[in-house]
């Protein structure tokens, strides 16, 4: 008897808790909307010209993982200037985003970390018009903060027993990393054996740049190649080692409106805003190099 | 031989049982819940008593004071469970051979055949338990229990799950097998007839205690107390007073008894219903002692026998009398109400009150 009433009230209590949680979670604003940690720029002047009606609706932005923090800040500024618009994000490897766009995933804007993926999208008529470059980035080598493996330079990557984590070959940063290794192997100071030795040390091909970063922060791997902007995000949790200039590649970030967008005006406005001085300042603050 | 003296605190009562079994069959008889199966489990080692001693053959398998507790695997006792419990995933042959791990294949087969012949289950060799009747299963279980040489056989209400016909069949089987099985047998049952049929000695249990442990005739005809008498199906138990010498008074009438009872001493006197005699009132021969006139108050017709309740006319007790069907017809019980009831002296038994 006692157990019956106990189990009944326990069930009711559990259901109540679950319902409360459901309400609480749905009550909040959409998760990926930006939370303001805005840089102080004044004059949140609307980018739209005075005669056009105010923008409204949702803008879904597919952006490379390396843009996570900066784009959230940019979106906050954009939303402040255009109160009727909500910006939602899907951050992932640019190759994954392109694959999703191919499967007609609903999106309004596509910001890629390399031209290769943008070109693929353009080749499949997934984007409108010509993509515009809005930022550049530079790959760097990162190691855990305590650097137990004692990696001091790019050359150490080929040391036997070093555990290297890269992004997959189709992910922009993964592609850039492999290009860098190829270039270094072509340099007589490193030698042709450098490539095999280094690639042998690769223990995982992660899905995106943030996954690589996570493994380095955790100390699970000895070294990885990410963008210098990512290294800044991790701060003291990782140490950065520069890639020799001669071998480095410049990551070019294009942005475009998705052809199947349901909110063309707001999407175009967002793209323009990203190229505006306000957004550029935010990108620079995050460590990106300017578009030109 | 098997010697048992164990105590265990149980939920409803404390078990405190003593008995022994030599080259004989001892039946633990009692109602459901009287502790008989628990006792058997204690002998087999499936239940650990709080204190006491159990001896099997020449070995002490349990002794609480000397911290001896031999596990059931090593007590060398055959055990027949109430719920048969043949291994459902093994055939009859495999079940019987289960305990014969020490033998090689041909020796095993020989032994299985021996037992199958003994228990008349030769044609059941390849069958699974699910394909056999209850009676057949019980025979297989018995064969299995006897497969390896044992120092004793324990049977826990082995026939209670069977219908009457099968029960009779298997009881007869057991009696027949007695000659081939030369070890002490302890059998638990709540069936009186079965107890008498199988037993050399009977231990009557009630609420965990042995009320009487004696030869079966002793228990049946000379119960130790009113309680034992009632448990063993004695219908007539009278409260009486001694009259000195070999006489007692029951409900105002004097009766002669086999034992001397001092004057005024309160006793119980009992006689089994089937030992009472009826005489017609119109017969004028000299009447033996312990006769009195009584009228039939009620009658239960069981087909093979009749149970009559007679009430004394004048001083004397109410008596239950069993009359078999032929005597019933010959005497013409159906046609008369008044009878002379005789309680034969030597069938009366005096018990302390």
């Amino acid at each position: 008897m006692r157990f019956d009433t106990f189990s009944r009230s326990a069930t009711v209590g559990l259901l109540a808790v679950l319902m409360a949680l459901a309400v609480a979670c749905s009550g909040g604003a959409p998760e990926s909307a930006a939370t303001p940690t805005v840089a102080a720029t004044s004059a949140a002047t609307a980018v739209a010209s005075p005669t056009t009606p105010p923008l409204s609706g949702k803008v879904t932005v597919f952006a490379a993982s390396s843009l996570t923090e900066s784009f959230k800040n940019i979106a906050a500024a954009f939303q402040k200037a255009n109160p009727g618009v909500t910006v939602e994000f899907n951050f992932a490897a640019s190759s994954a985003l392109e694959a999703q766009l191919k499967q007609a995933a609903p999106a309004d804007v596509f910001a890629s970390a390399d031209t290769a993926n943008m070109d693929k999208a353009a080749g499949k008529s997934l984007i409108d018009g010509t993509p515009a470059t809005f930022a550049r980035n530079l790959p760097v080598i990162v190691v855990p903060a305590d650097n137990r493996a004692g990696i001091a330079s790019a050359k150490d990557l080929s040391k036997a027993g070093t555990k290297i984590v890269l992004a997959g070959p189709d992910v922009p940063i993964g592609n850039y990393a492999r290009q860098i290794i190829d270039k270094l192997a072509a340099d007589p100071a490193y030698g042709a054996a450098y490539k095999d030795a280094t690639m042998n040390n690769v223990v995982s091909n992660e899905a995106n740049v943030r996954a690589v970063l996570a493994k380095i922060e955790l100390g699970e791997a000895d070294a990885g190649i990410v963008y210098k902007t990512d290294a800044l995000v991790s701060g003291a949790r990782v140490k950065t080692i520069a890639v020799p200039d001669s071998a480095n590649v410049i990551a070019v970030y294009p942005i475009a409106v998705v052809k199947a967008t349901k909110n063309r005006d707001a999407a175009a406005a967002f793209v323009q805003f990203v190229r505006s001085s306000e957004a550029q300042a935010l990108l620079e603050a995050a460590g990106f190099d300017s578009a030109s | 031989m098997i010697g048992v003296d164990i105590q265990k605190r149980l939920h409803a009562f404390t078990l405190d049982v003593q008995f022994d079994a030599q080259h004989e069959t001892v039946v633990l008889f009692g109602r459901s819940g009287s502790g008989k199966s628990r006792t058997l489990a204690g002998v087999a080692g499936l239940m650990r008593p709080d204190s006491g001693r159990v001896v099997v053959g020449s070995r002490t398998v349990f002794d609480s004071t000397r911290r001896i507790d031999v596990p059931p695997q090593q007590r060398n006792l055959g055990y027949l469970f109430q719920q048969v419990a043949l291994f459902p995933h093994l055939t009859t042959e495999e079940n019987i051979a289960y305990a014969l791990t020490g033998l090689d294949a041909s020796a095993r087969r020989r032994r299985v055949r021996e037992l199958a012949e003994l228990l008349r289950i030769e044609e059941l060799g390849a069958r699974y338990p699910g394909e056999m009747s209850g009676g057949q299963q019980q025979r297989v279980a018995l064969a299995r229990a006897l497969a390896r040489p044992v120092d004793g056989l324990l049977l826990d209400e082995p026939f209670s799950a069977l219908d009457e016909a099968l029960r009779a069949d298997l009881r007869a089987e057991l009696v027949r097998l007695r000659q081939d099985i030369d070890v002490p047998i302890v059998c638990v049952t709540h069936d009186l007839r079965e107890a008498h049929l199988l037993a050399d000695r009977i231990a009557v249990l009630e609420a965990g205690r042995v009320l009487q442990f004696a030869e079966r005739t002793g228990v049946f005809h000379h119960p130790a107390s009113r309680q034992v008498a009632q448990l063993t199906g004695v219908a007539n138990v009278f409260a009486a007073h001694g009259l000195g010498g070999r006489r007692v008074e029951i409900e105002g009438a004097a009766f002669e008894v086999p034992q001397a009872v001092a004057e005024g001493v309160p006793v119980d006197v009992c006689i089994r219903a089937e030992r009472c005699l009826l005489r017609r009132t119109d017969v004028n021969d000299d009447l033996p002692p312990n006769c009195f006139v009584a009228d039939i108050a009620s009658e239960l017709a069981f087909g093979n026998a009749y149970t009559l309740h007679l009430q004394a006319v004048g001083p004397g007790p109410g008596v239950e009398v069993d009359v078999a069907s032929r005597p019933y017809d010959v005497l013409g019980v159906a046609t008369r109400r008044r009878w002379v009831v005789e309680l034969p002296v030597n069938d009366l038994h005096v018990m302390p009150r």
Partner: protein
Amino acid sequence: MSTNSAAEHPRVVAVRRAWSLGWIFASPSLLFGAFVLVPLIALAIRGWQDGQVMERLLSPFVLHALRLSVVTSTLTLVLALVFGVPAAYLLARGRFRGRQLLTILVELPMVLPPTVAGVALLVAFGRRGAIGAALVEMGIEVSFTTTAVILAQLFVSAPFLVRSLQAGFEAIDPTYEQVSATLGVSELRTFLRVTLPLARPALLSGAVLCWTRALSELGATLIFAGNFEGRTQTMPLAIITAFESSAGLSGAIAISLVLLVVASILLVVARLAQRRSRGSS
């Protein structure tokens, strides 16, 4: 005797009574069946039509992933049996304090999202992890190895085996074990000759559940073991990697088809084994 006769007779009664209920339950059942079948059939058809898919079907990329998946999930099953059978028996028959707690612990991985399992395993067995660091001292590296894959699979799939087997053991009448004891057979041999055979249906179905769960494990593997062809890239991981790579949907379809076929074959084999065991007991 009575336990089996009930099983022999209900057919007659059941067939007659099921009819009206059969009609009522038919539509939702068919709908659900279609819901499951249609995507699989679509997958097969698309794969057949798409030329790229047929090319990729037996590429090294796919074969490496297939071999890795089959090997790791089988090893996982073996380990699950080695540790799970005794555990299941103790949980079923044991009377010890903390038994309830242990049961909950065993069931926990089933309730947790696999990604949580991955994070937990990383924290424990990663190079800087509580246990992982000690292992590194001894020269044992777990992260980014096939061992990590097996650990991740074991963590999420072993509970299925244990729970199924525990229920199986609990359903066995303890009287059988007592009978065996009185027949002079030791406890261990009783377990091997009576208890385990009687629990065979539960063992088989638990093993199938465990093995399929291990085969399809993704979240924990991704986080804990990494993604490297031939070493840690199991089939599920390969599918995601292909999908997001230049191979795209075609690549994903190819691997999915291979996995579908392999899994179906193994399920059929397992079913046959189950039917044989049920027939004999």
